[in-house]
Each structure stands twice: as C-alpha cells, then as structure tokens.
C-alpha cells in the first residue's frame, strides 16, 4: 500500500516527467504495435494463400466410378485430409471456361480430365505433408497424374519461415528498445530522488522496500503507455483502412497481451535502472 502511495506521490510531484515517460513508452510500444500489426496482416495473407494448397489427382478416362468413389472415401480418411472433392470432366470444363473468360472457346468437351481435389487440414499443409498425400494418391491405378505445385508450396513455406524468424527478431529488437526507453524514463525519476534513496538506505530500508515504488511506477507507466500505444495503433489502422487497403486489427486477446507486454516492459525497465542505481550508491 505504501509503495503504491509512494509511486503515485512521485508521479504527482513531477507530473511533466511522468507524462513524458508515459508518452515515450507509448511511442516505443506504438512502433512495436505497428510492427505487430504488419506481422499479423502478413500472416493472415499467407494463411489465405496457404488455404489454397491442394493436391489434384487426374483420373483416367477409363476409371470405374465406383472405384473412384471408394478411393475418395479412403483418401478422406487420411489424417492430413480436410476435404475431398470430385471434379468431373464437365465441371472442369465449366470452371476452365469461367476462369479463362474471353478464351473460353479454346476448350472443348472431353479435353479436360476429371480429377480428385484434396484439401489439407490447417497445420498439415507443409511440403512434407503435401508430398506424402500426393505419393499415397499415386498408388491408385486409375490415377494418371498427381499435381500439387511442389515448388510453389516450398516457396510459400520458405517465405513463411522467413516472415516468422524476421518477425521474432524484429519483435525482440523492438521490445529491447522499449525496455531501454522505459528504463531511461524511470531512471530520470530515480535520479530526481537519488538523495531520498541514499537516506533510505542509511536508515535501514531494504533494497526491495526502495525498489517497490519504482516497480509500481514502471508498471503503471507501462500499462498507461500500452493503452496509449494501442489507441495510436488503432488510429493508424483506421487511416490505412480508409485510404490504402483493408487490414485486420488485433483481437481482444492480442490487445490484452499488448497491455500486459507494456506492464512487463515497465517492470523490467524499472528493475534494470533501479538495480543499476542501487549498486552505484
């Protein structure tokens, strides 16, 4: 209770410094949040592309329809498989004509083979899974050929991995910068109270007793900065949606995590700066 009171009193004594601290934290978390927003939008785009990963097996003209139906049932029971569709010759022709538009007349009936289209479950769309399903499908005698855009799938996954790794690296870098900035703002408060801290130590205050108000100060500033940053990111998101492109915003869980992240950064920043100061005096 005393620590909370101390932390609030410190903020009241230096309102400008405290406000500056919160705004600085908000800006560093804003940069972090913008990056996070870009990251989730890239991820969503990649997910959408990934949903289109499918394995297509072309059925020979002589295939028995019952054989095909039984095979489709088997394939549907593969653990990787989400959905199996049969595309008849007519349907394939209709789809090709629709997709080709003005060149629709190029296709004649019977040119395009019937096929079995297999959609994979989320999380099982990596090249290894796709290849395994394709290989299993090749074992059916009535299947002429299996296509799954091997190169395309591999490229997509490479892109996804690069996005994840660079996302984590940049995220950590932004978090470290935010912690350093929070530490610097808390340090200003610590320096403003250096004499008080040295007297506290002389009269027997424990390090934890001295630290606690600063930790609470860091926590409050982190949370306030987190909220403010969230507002800034939301405004930025609205502007992008209005003038450039449709993007998604953080869901509730992510927003909560963002504010908790601000709080954690506030505490870590205080711990670092107060710890350094206590070692020095």
């Amino acid at each position, binding site marked *: 209770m*005393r620590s909370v009171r101390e932390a609030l009193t410190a903020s009241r*004594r230096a309102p400008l410094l405290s406000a500056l601290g919160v705004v600085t934290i908000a800006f560093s978390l804003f940069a972090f949040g913008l990056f996070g927003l870009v990251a989730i939008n890239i991820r969503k785009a990649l997910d959408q592309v990934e949903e289109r990963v499918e394995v297509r097996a072309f059925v020979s003209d002589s295939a028995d329809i019952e054989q095909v139906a039984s095979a489709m049932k088997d394939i549907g029971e593969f653990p990787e498989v989400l959905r199996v569709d049969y595309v008849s010759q007519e349907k394939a022709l209709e789809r090709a004509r629709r997709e080709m538009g003005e060149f629709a007349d190029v296709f004649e009936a019977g040119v395009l083979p019937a096929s079995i289209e297999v959609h994979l479950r989320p999380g099982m769309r990596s090249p290894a899974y796709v290849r395994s399903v394709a290989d299993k499908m090749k074992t059916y005698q009535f299947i002429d050929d299996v296509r799954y855009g091997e190169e395309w799938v591999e490229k997509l996954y490479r892109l996804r991995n690069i996005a994840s790794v660079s996302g984590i690296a940049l995220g950590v870098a932004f978090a470290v910068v935010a912690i350093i900035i929070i530490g610097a703002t808390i340090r200003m408060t610590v320096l403003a109270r250096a*004499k*008080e801290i*040295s*007297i*506290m*130590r*002389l*009269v*027997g*205050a*424990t*390090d934890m*007793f001295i630290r606690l108000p600063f930790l609470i100060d860091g926590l409050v500033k982190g949370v306030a900065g987190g909220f403010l940053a969230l507002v800034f990111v939301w405004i930025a998101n609205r502007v992008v949606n209005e003038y450039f492109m449709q993007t998604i915003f953080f869901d509730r869980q992510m927003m909560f995590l963002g504010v908790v992240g601000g709080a954690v950064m506030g505490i870590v920043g205080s711990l670092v700066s107060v710890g350094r100061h206590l070692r020095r005096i």
Partner: protein
Amino acid sequence: MIRLTEVAKEYPRSGVALAHVSFELGKGEFVFLTGPSGSGKTTILKLLYMDDKPTQGEVWINGVSSRNATGREISRLRRRIGIVFQDFRLLEDRTAEANVRFALEVTGAPKATIRSKVARVLTQVGLSSKSTSFPRELSGGEQQRVAIARALINDPFVLIADEPTGNLDERATRGVFQLLRDINASGTAVVMATHDLDLVRRSNYRTIELNHGRLVFDSAEPPASGRPIEEPIWPRETPPDATESI
C-alpha cells in the same frame, strides 16, 4: 560491540585508504576519530555502517561480520545505528517532523508509534517548536539537530557522526556537541569523526588518531604506545577536512 581486526581498505583509483587498523569499542563508549584530510576517518565510518567492505581484515558490529553480512542483515543493522553527516542530508521538501518520521516509516513501524516517537526525539533535541519548519527555515545547528533526531528515532546502540560540527559556528558546535554528550550519557555509544581539536581537548573522551590510513594513536592504549592528548595531534595548518564527507 564493535571490533576492527587488521582492517585494510584499498580503492582501485585512489589506492590505500586504510592499513592494519585494529581497535575495539565497548558499549556506551564515546570515541573521537581524528586525523588530517584523507587519513581514513570517513572510510572507517563507512565500514562501521557497512556502506563499504574492507579489502582485508574484518569488521564486527553488533554480531554482524563484514565478511558474510547479507543485504537484509545490513539493512537491519542500520536500523540500530544512527548516522549523522556534516551536510545534514535532510530532504528539503519535507518538514523537520517529516524528515524524522521518514526514518521510522521505512522500517514499517506502526503509525501510532511513529507519532509518539517523533514527538519524543524532537523534544529531546530541543526542536519540538520547530517540527513544522522546512530545513531552509532552520539554522545550521537546528538542521543538524533534526538530523540527530532522525538518527535517534530507532533507538540506536551507536551514533556515528562524520564531522557533525564541521559546518557550524562556535555556538552551534557547542550545542550539538552537548547534545551528543547527553545522548552518550543515556547509554548510546558515539563515534565522532572531527577536526575540531579544541573539542577533543576540552573533553576527556577516548581519541583514536589516524594518519595516511594507519592508526597512529589510541588514548585507550597503554601510555608506552600512546601519546598524551595535550600534545598537538597533527600540524594545525592542515586544511579542514571539507571534502572527505561521503
């Protein structure tokens, strides 16, 4: 109660601050620490309240050893030690009463206890009428009395004073010194670092003299190794130890 055994202190930049210093202080004793600037007085005081650790040797104070004292033990020890400085070290934005109260608050004492104790020590140092004054409204002597009240609030077994009269005029010096004598008379040991040889000569307390980090005289030692206090302790032209306070 306090024992220093073969204590040495060396700083990486400034070199040897203390070497081969050994002495003991008993309960309720009054001891002057004297010596020229840089002789190691302040270093000894810092070792006593464990703001620093010796490079060699050991400092024992009230059952706590410098060799293995934990942070928590040091904090608890400091609650039983009163510390007073030449520059008072008061918080300028708080009243005399708040400055004294501060030392009890950090120990987590109950509010009712704090109120009665603060009133008692302010009366003890003769400042009950100035409890609501801010440090800038008080004279040097009065500010030092507030600092002494703060040092007394936790009923210390020893009061450590680093040049407590260094910034005071003659009259205030006499008043503060008398206060320290009264505190000692009530059973609290006092270790006082000072330049004021008149003060040392006028009183009959034990005197430990340091020079270049070595203990060169202890009036409690047998006369063979000691030197009568009437003789000059060190050349009078030595400038006051103004920079030594921590």
